[in-house]
């Protein structure tokens, strides 16, 4: 009987394992810096985190590594700092091996081998320059700010109150120019729109976090439940960023800018959208820059996935989320994100869908840090 080839690791599991091990490393080093009164407890927690990583034994011997970490906890009264380099080595070796397995998804066939690191070298210096080091730098950069939620904690996160949600279009309308106030309110109240339901100022940050990490619909309309195996099932969808406007005033800014532009240049929104689409086009995506809208830092908040600075890294993170949804662990992480303050090309993303030959409904409107090149710029529409 021929032997079956060993199953390959799942992309999302690899990404989660790399992030988990790297965070373990950081945690270890902080203990070495002192204040290790509860060190044994922390190390036990780390060991549990490592044990939650699901990878085939030939890829990463998780139980052995978890035991190694646990063993470390028993000796923490001794001077860990003196043994830091050797304590770190197994992690560095494993993380490098896992990055090599992830590399093909980044278009790379092989990674340079680990070289010897100078005594006292920073953690990042252990990794060869290029893909491996860049990835580690990106992950380490998010460790301090990042947060996670257990599925149980996500379950406890309240969904937005319906009466608060219902009030938003009126509050936004109060901020709009009277010539297009009703248009703006109608747009936000349209059943096709989820701008308010997903990005309204009444949605608490933790509700955005539960949306991003565990696909929990902020409005509570779409099914979401914990599974007996620890995972979660949902039919809500979300990309690698979740967030919205911090006030009705902020939400009104890009809407007012777009409706004003439409009124001046095309006699109204329906005209503007119809003029700038093919007759059969079903949807149009528009970018309004922060400058045109008057959006400023603090007008937006939310979360984005950690280490998502390229297409492939974003897909790693999305796969890790899918893996976590299926198994409930290991955790995935997000960092607080104000796209207007932190983005390279901040603004607002709009999408409309055609509902008639020359009539349109708002689908969504939310703040973004980058302009997707496939959106139309408001200023290019006439």
């Amino acid at each position, binding site marked *: 009987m021929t032997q*079956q*080839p*060993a*199953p*390959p*690791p*799942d*992309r*999302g*599991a690899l990404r989660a394992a790399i992030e988990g091990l790297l965070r373990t490393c950081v945690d270890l080093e902080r203990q070495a810096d002192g204040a290790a009164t509860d060190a044994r407890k922390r190390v036990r927690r780390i060991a549990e985190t490592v044990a939650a990583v*699901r990878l*085939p034994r030939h890829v990463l011997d998780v139980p052995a590594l978890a035991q190694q970490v646990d063993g470390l906890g028993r000796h923490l009264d001794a001077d860990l700092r003196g043994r830091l380099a050797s304590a770190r080595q197994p992690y560095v070796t494993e993380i490098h091996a896992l990055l090599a397995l992830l*590399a*093909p*998804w*980044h*278009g*790379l*066939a092989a990674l340079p081998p680990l070289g010897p690191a100078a005594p006292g070298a920073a953690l990042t210096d252990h990794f060869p320059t290029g893909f491996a080091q860049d990835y580690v730098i990106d992950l380490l950069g998010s460790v301090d700010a990042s947060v996670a939620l257990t599925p149980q904690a996500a379950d406890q996160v309240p969904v937005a109150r319906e009466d608060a949600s219902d009030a938003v279009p009126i509050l936004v309308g109060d901020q709009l120019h009277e010539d297009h106030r009703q248009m703006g309110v109608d747009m936000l109240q349209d059943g096709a729109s989820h701008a308010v339901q997903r990005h309204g100022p009444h949605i608490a940050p933790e509700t955005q976090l539960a949306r991003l990490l565990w696909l929990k619909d902020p409005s509570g309309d779409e*099914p979401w439940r914990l599974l007996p195996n620890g995972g979660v*099932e*949902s*039919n809500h*969808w*979300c*990309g*690698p*960023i979740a967030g919205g406007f911090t006030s009705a005033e902020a939400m009104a800014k890009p809407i007012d800018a777009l409706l004003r532009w439409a009124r001046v240049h095309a006699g109204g929104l329906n005209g503007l959208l119809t003029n700038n*689409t*093919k*007759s*059969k*086009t*079903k*949807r*149009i*995506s528009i970018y309004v820059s922060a400058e045109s809208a008057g959006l400023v830092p603090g007008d937006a908040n939310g979360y984005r996935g950690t280490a998502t*600075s*390229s*297409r*492939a*890294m*974003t897909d790693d993170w*999305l*796969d890790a989320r*899918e*893996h976590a949804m*299926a*198994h409930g662990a290991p955790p995935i992480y997000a960092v607080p994100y104000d796209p207007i303050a932190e983005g390279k090309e901040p603004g607002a*993303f709009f*999408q409309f869908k055609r509902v008639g030959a020359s009539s349109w409904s708002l*689908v*969504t409107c939310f703040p*973004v840090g*980058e302009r*997707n*090149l*496939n*959106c*139309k710029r408001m200023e290019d529409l006439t």
Partner: protein
Amino acid sequence: MTSPSENFKDHFGGGFGVADETPEAYVEACEEALEMLADDDDGSYHAFRDELAAHIRDSSYPPHRVADSQWITDEWLRNIWYDAFGPEPPPGDPYPVPAEDWGRRRRTPYMMYAVNRRPELSSPGAPAWLKARGLTFDDVNAGVGVSLTGQFASARPAPEGWLERLHDLTARGLREEQPGER
């Protein structure tokens, strides 16, 4: 093919190119592709499809971010092509994906968003989409967790001679050179 045309951006920006922002629009765009081809009075949708094939052939769709390589960008476009038009590779694709990989070794954005563990939690259009591609929910979901096949799911490193190919395409004026290609 050189940079994306306005017609291309019109169609691409309505869904295929904005999955991170609005997964729903991406899924809708995939599910309505056949209808768009059939009902295309002005020919703009066929022109869009032909241009997508040309961008894959000539590596001429520029990466969105500097950290994105042309290879990863082209692989992303191949996934979109499959999600919209099925397993027949785009005409002229120099690195076609083996048809049997789709949904088994290789997952796409449509599979991630629209195909959930149970049909009730999936896009209403998912059963028809899967059927048209000869796939089942189980096929696609086997890729979540640990794949059962002996190969990497969806991972194809850039092939030998890839940079030389890009240089040649650039020299022939078919694409713009991107950062990091020298």
